[in-house]
């Protein structure tokens, strides 16, 4: 194995519309790998990942899936929108955690190539855009030649590199519900050097009612086989007055629930210990961004 070459043989197709891409996926009945920006897929293929496919479907000409626009529910982001076009888009500036996560990912060159849809469908446990989308209750729009369906992002991931997406389906867009008044969110991640994949990431979201917490959600990356929302943790804050002690209590609870592993980037012990700090920090910042004081 050498990363100098791509040591795989395949056929290549580059349809120039979503309809053509879906027709191809339906006609081939499996054996097709869809490539978005290629920044995850080509690394996996070069480093010998076991990804069975005989046809590579390159989405580079499907320009209709690169957009950020207002929709009935809030904002819709096309699956093939480059990461670099998300964090500077003023329509998204109130989605603090998402906007904050993007510039922390990889490097400018990779963000010019990689797409948000690719980051989601690649389904890394450490996918940095996944947790922000979870706390906003984002919905993924999937299409196939036989129809469309919507899947909440909390139901999309099923394991490491595994999702509910079917062989004949593509992720078309991500729908972000409108930002609620007096709400705030925050994304924090830890890496060894800046462009690294996260050792751990924490996303917190809070809705404020005066000095009390009206809603609170916490999601974490790289502490489970998929990005996860820590269900039940944020709920403990409901209707309570926000204090540093409350956020530390939630952070302790979060640390006791997660089941991180030892891997090349970090250890289970480190991930559990630092989550006690990061969850509290993320909650504090989200609270302040919701207009709250401590």
């Amino acid at each position, binding site marked *: 194995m050498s990363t100098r070459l791509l*040591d795989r043989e395949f056929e290549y197709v580059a349809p120039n519309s979503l309809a053509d891409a879906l027709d191809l996926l339906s006609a081939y009945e499996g054996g097709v790998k869809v490539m978005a920006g290629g920044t995850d897929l080509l690394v996996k293929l070069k480093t010998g990942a076991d990804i069975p496919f005989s046809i590579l479907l390159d989405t580079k000409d499907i320009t209709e899936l690169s957009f950020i626009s207002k929709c009935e529910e809030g904002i819709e982001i096309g699956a093939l929108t480059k990461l670099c076009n998300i964090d500077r888009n003023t329509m998204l500036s109130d989605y603090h955690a998402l906007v904050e996560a993007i510039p922390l990912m990889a490097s400018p060159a990779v963000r010019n190539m990689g797409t948000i849809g690719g980051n989601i469908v690649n389904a890394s446990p450490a996918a940095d855009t996944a947790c922000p989308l979870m706390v906003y209750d984002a919905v993924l729009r999937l299409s196939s030649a036989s129809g469309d369906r919507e899947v909440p992002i909390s139901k999309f991931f099923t394991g490491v590199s595994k999702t509910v997406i079917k062989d004949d389906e593509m992720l078309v867009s991500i729908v972000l519900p409108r930002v609620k008044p007096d709400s705030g969110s925050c994304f924090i991640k830890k890496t060894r050097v800046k462009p690294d994949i996260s050792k751990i990431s924490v996303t917190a979201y809070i809705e404020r009612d005066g000095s009390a917490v009206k809603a609170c959600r916490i999601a974490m990356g790289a502490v489970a086989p998929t990005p996860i929302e820590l269900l039940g943790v944020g709920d403990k804050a409901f209707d309570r007055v926000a204090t540093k002690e409350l956020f530390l209590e939630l952070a302790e609870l979060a640390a006791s629930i997660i089941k991180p592993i030892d891997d090349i980037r970090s250890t289970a012990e480190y991930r559990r210990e630092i989550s006690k700090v990061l969850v509290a920090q993320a909650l504090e910042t989200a609270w302040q961004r919701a207009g709250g004081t401590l």
Partner: protein
Amino acid sequence: MMKLHNITLTVNGRRYDLAVEPNELLLNVIRDRLHLTGTKYGCGIAECGACSIIANGKLMLACMILAVTASGWDITTSEGLAKDGNLNPVQQAFIDKGAIQCGFCTPGMVVAGTTLLMENNSPTEDEIREYMRGNYCRCTGYTSIVEAIESAAIHMNETK
């Protein structure tokens, strides 16, 4: 034998018509078929920035792009930065500041430094370090590299 695909690349203003296999990487086409060896193979997995190129005005990594994907693209490699025999301000600043040790990362560094100044004509030191985070220098000559980009920005703003 995989099916060949006819592609057209514009590299440093010159048009190339090529037939490539689907698994050929843009980096290898640039180096082995166009013989433009300034663009380096470093890590091969989008981490080191040695293969940095400017593609349609954006900083990208040639090791992580299929040649067939790049058909129709307008590409500038480190060889295309100089115009009419004159080095661009970033290249000249790398010489003036001695921002080169072994030189292997240098083509990627000057390409990334050039796109940085295309996007932000007076970056702070923090902004330079942030932008250059994907370009590794294993001689660890980062301080002089940052100084070179700062000095190129000043020079470009003075001569505008």
